[in-house]
């Protein structure tokens, strides 16, 4: 069903710099992400995974191609990207919590300033979400007082507080000490189970296998191969995918 | 109390015409000009406000309307008349020469003598400054050092930084009285009339001020003020 497609990417190009020295990070990427789908993006370093993800909410300005989100062309100049971004949550490798605000302020800042909720509503929603990730008692803490895993869980909650329709994760566990990876993945798994549409760049193959509906392998700015985790991990067709997975596993 | 304000601009480091003094616990500008101005305002039904500023700024301030009139022991000169109007004269000023006792300068002519090369201290932008600049510096007969106020110029004379100071007679007397070893030469540099500077456009105020000056001189108010600051026996000397 076409009504099911939440994001439709056509011929996406992204070049950094101009002229001969330009880095062609994305070289024509086509993709569809359906409502409720969990898409995992893998690939070697520099293959364009982050760039792809960041183009989806236009943190990177695409050089060419089109991105349709919920029927709206978000690459057109007439689109108000700030409104679109409120419907897409993003989680970064480096957490990027606001260090000058408490955990609660981090979470409620956007909903309140965007007038989506009153301060009371936002606080209530924040406490509910904090409860879900087991960090209620950190509401008044500052980010500097949290562990990496706690920071990332707060970052996820901050994005969820906007009630987004899709969540974008860029290697959310790569900056964590190994003992903290689990707690973040658990939150992501819970989220997946609740039906959230998710696009996840990650090297956590276990997570990919267990949670994802589809795995997409990128190399040199192109989608080289995609399929169910079963297909990709057990039976990769492309030579480069095989190489990549053999090094990883 | 709800009388309209009239702003007077002056440089209050010029005794006895205008200087700072604490009166009834308040920093007040007193002196001949201050009292005459107060009398005029009283006569015309205004409240006087005095703005203390650089002497060199007064004419400009009158022109731009920052102040309503300038009164700072100001001499009428042709140049100044091009910029502002002047009231009738309310006092006579004499530019005199202060030297240290035993100075080689004994008459005003010594300053203009062939080959003279003196350093003359003045207050910046006063008539003393202007005359000395034209008569001496522009003629190559000496150097003019321009101080921010008369007291600084006298201070420089005391410490031999300058050879003499050219300044109005009345402040000169005050300066000499306050500093041992200074004398005023008998020959004056130039005699001139003090008047009030008023903006060219403001002929109405000019007329009113002249009227007030006339009345206040006739009823003895102004002579009394001058007598108070410059006692007659001293003036006669």
């Amino acid at each position, binding site marked *: 069903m076409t009504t099911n497609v939440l994001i439709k990417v056509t011929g996406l190009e992204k070049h950094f710099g101009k002229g001969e020295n330009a880095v062609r990070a994305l070289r024509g990427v086509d993709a569809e992400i359906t409502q409720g789908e969990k898409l995992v993006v893998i690939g070697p370093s520099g293959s364009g995974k982050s760039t792809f993800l960041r183009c989806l909410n236009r943190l990177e300005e695409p050089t060419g191609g089109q991105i349709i989100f919920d029927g709206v062309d978000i690459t057109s100049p007439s689109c108000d990207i700030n409104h679109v971004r409120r419907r*897409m949550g993003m989680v970064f490798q480096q957490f990027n919590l606001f260090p000058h605000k408490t955990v609660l302020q981090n979470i409620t*800042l956007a909903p309140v300033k965007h007038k989506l909720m009153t301060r009371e509503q936002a606080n209530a929603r924040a406490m509910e979400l904090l409860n879900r990730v087991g960090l209620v008692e950190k509401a008044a803490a*500052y980010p500097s007082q949290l562990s990496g895993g706690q920071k990332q869980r707060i970052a996820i909650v901050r994005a969820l507080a906007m009630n987004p329709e899709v969540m974008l994760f860029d290697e959310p566990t790569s900056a964590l000490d190994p003992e903290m990876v689990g707690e973040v993945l658990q939150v992501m798994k819970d989220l997946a189970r609740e039906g959230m549409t998710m696009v996840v760049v990650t090297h956590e193959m276990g997570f990919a296998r267990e949670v994802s509906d589809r795995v997409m392998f990128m190399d040199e700015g192109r989608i080289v191969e995609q399929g169910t985790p079963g297909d990709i991990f057990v039976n990769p067709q492309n030579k480069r995918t095989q190489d990549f997975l053999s090094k990883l596993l | 109390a709800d009388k309209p304000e009239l702003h007077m601009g002056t440089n209050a480091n010029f005794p006895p015409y205008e*200087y700072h003094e604490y009166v009834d616990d308040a*920093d007040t500008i007193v002196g001949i000009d201050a009292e005459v101005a107060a009398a005029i305002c009283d006569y015309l039904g205004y409240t006087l406000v005095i703005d*203390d500023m*650089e002497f060199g700024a007064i004419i400009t301030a009158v022109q731009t309307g920052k102040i309503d009139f300038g009164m700072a022991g100001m001499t009428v000169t042709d140049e100044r008349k091009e910029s502002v109007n002047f009231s009738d004269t309310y006092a006579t000023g004499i530019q005199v020469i202060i030297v240290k006792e035993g100075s080689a300068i004994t008459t005003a002519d010594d300053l203009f003598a062939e080959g003279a090369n003196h350093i003359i201290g003045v207050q910046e932008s006063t008539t003393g400054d202007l005359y000395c600049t034209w008569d001496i510096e522009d003629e190559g007969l000496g150097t003019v050092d321009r101080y921010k106020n008369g*007291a600084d110029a006298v201070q420089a004379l005391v410490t031999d930084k300058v050879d003499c100071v050219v300044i109005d007679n009345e402040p000169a007397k005050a300066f000499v009285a306050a500093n041992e070893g200074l004398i005023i030469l008998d020959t004056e540099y130039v005699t001139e009339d003090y008047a009030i500077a008023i903006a060219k456009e403001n002929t109405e105020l000019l007329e009113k001020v002249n009227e007030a000056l006339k009345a206040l001189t006739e009823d003895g108010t102004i002579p009394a003020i001058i007598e108070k600051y410059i006692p007659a026996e001293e003036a006669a000397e």
Partner: protein
Amino acid sequence: MSEWFDGIKAQFILNFVEKSRWRYLLTGLFNTLKITFFAVLIGIALGTVIAIVRSTADRNLNAMRHGPGRTILSFFDKICRLYLTVVRGTPVVIQLMIFYYVIFASSRNSVLIAIISFGLNSAAYVAEVVRGGIMSVDIGQTEAGRSLGFNYVQTMWLIVVPQALKNVLPALANEFIVLLKETSVAGYVAIKDLTKGGDIIRGATYSPFMPLIAVALIYLVLVVFFSWLVGKLERRLRNSDH
């Protein structure tokens, strides 16, 4: 010795006690602090705005699409650059005189003129400091702000600038000390600041030593005191992370 001491004492009485001359210093000090304080506020406010424009232009102008946004940003950036060049290229006393004699020629509030003039001057120096502060805030903070749907100005205002200002707080506090000394030229246009207070006494007593030393000592005490405060602030900031 005792003669020397008597001389000092007489000088002291003449310069400060007689006719309550110490009050010139007190009102002067008050004006100096008033001018410095408000000038710093103007400096920080305007300097921050300039810093935002300049750093926005530096970071984004190259990558921006052509269009009205780019034109406007480029225009304001040029204005800011011009402002910085002119203000940093001329002495503050000249700026003060231009404000006093030309721009605000018809204003009578000379303390206000001084505040504006020193404030605008300070802004040019504060701008560079704040710009450094903005540049030192991780770009991830901006990305996080933008991805939550804030526009550029909101992101700057809510997220980047507060952190930038916190980083440069000691430098900004130091600007207060710099200005405190700088305002000493206010007397050039007959503003009765602390320096002028000493000048008035000197003009009345003809003894330069005491008034000048007294004024110098007051400045010194102020500077040492505020420097100590800045040092304390610095240590405190270093020990807290948020």
